[in-house]
């Protein structure tokens, strides 16, 4: 995901798509609370607009079963 | 109603007209005409020939075709065969294959015509749903495939054919639903 850092207080547009199979794109805050999500689907780009109200390290987790590596699809997002 | 002999001549004439080279070329120049006009026409001719077959012929066939299953199996196999894209192509470029088409497709129609009424209603239902699903599947396939299936037809032609199949399938589905839920008859199937 580029960039891996976004600013808080202003809307961020995530353009979510998938190259292989269906995935889910769930944004979790530092307390592991799900705050926004969309589906990631081959052939489509889902636009998710979210405004982070505070800075911190957020996690992106896969929220659609996508195969044996489903539970290791975790990445980080820094909000400044 | 014409007498049987006259009907037989009419059907034979229809078959010959369809087989005339200019007619052939005209009906085979596009996928839609080929699949939705020529082949159904051949099948219908076969169906009607089946109706006017002499009674003793039918009686001789009957023990080999109880409940209509032999005929239906034959019809399904012929149908599957003519759904192969390469066979469609071959029919256009090789005359023996074309001849096979003019023989087997009417036979398919005949087999269906004779066997369908004898078939168990539940088997009829399963087949009808399968035929319907095949319309939808093929229609979808033709619309979505990036490449041409038949070397003799244009991609745009394939797309139109796909749309027509989906349209026909949809109409069929609506008619069927209306009929089974409310007893409204639009078409007789």
């Amino acid at each position, binding site marked *: 995901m580029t960039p891996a850092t976004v600013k808080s207080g202003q809307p961020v547009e995530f353009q979510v798509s998938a190259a292989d199979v269906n995935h889910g794109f769930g944004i979790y805050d530092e307390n592991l609370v799900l705050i926004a999500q969309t589906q990631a689907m081959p052939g489509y780009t889902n636009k998710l607009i979210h405004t982070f109200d505070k800075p911190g390290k957020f996690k992106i987790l896969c929220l659609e079963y996508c195969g044996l590596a489903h539970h290791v699809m975790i990445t980080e997002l820094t909000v400044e | 109603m014409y007498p049987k002999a006259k009907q037989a001549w009419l059907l034979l004439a229809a078959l010959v007209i369809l087989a005339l080279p200019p007619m052939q070329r005209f009906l085979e120049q596009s996928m839609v005409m080929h699949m939705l006009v020529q082949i159904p026409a051949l099948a219908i001719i076969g169906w009607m020939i089946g109706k006017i077959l002499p009674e003793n012929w039918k009686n001789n066939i009957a023990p080999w075709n*109880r409940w209509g299953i032999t005929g239906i*199996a034959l019809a399904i196999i012929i149908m*599957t*065969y003519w759904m*192969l*894209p*390469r066979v469609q*192509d071959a029919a256009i470029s090789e005359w023996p294959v074309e001849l096979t088409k003019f023989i087997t497709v009417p036979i398919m129609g005949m087999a269906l015509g004779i066997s369908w009424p004898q078939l168990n209603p539940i088997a009829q239902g399963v087949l009808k749903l399968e035929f319907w699903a095949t319309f939808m599947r093929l229609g979808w396939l033709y619309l979505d495939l990036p490449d041409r299936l038949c*070397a*003799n037809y244009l991609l745009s032609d394939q797309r139109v054919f796909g749309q027509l199949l989906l349209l026909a399938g949809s109409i069929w589905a609506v008619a069927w639903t209306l009929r089974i839920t409310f007893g409204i008859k639009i078409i007789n199937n």
Partner: protein
Amino acid sequence: MKTFLATFLVVIVGSLVLWVSTDEGRAFTAEEARRLEIRETPRSVPDWRLQNQDAETFRIQDWHGHFIVVDFIYTSCPDVCLILSGNLKTLQKDFSTEEKSDKLRFLSISFDPEKDTPQRLKEYLHHFSADLRYWMAARPINPSQKEAILDFFKVIVIPDEYGGYTHSAGYHIINPDGKLVAIFGIEQTDELHTYLNQVLEEKENVSKS
């Protein structure tokens, strides 16, 4: 019992027919069928005379001892041929080392000889910045020969609704013995690349030993 027998027979014979007519379930379209057929039974290419971009007569025999990649084109083609020959250009670049390009030749045959004069064929090659030593464009010299060539390769050409043509798009490989040995589709450029690498390597080893 009779019914059972008859149904059994119909199903068995029918399945057999379907099995055979799809080459054991491997080819459902005419395109797949021609690729499979060539792979299993390579055929010697007849010695046609063609006219190339320099208006010279060219015979496929002239390139005996080389691997030849043949594609079929018409120069006013707006799409598929551009991709076809565009890929040839990439291939030529990839196999440009002297020894390899000496074993590998490209031939673009036009199936629209009325319009495609040598002049236009030359422009076509220039468009792809072709290395003319190894890549030739040519047209059949008369209609009956055009038919013979298309029939041999089982290339089907049909007019489209814009005054152009839709046609079988592929790469036809003729081996150094003058036999048509393989056909790759336009979408199989990676496979074609691997194949060429392999056969050229083999040939090299044979000539060394």
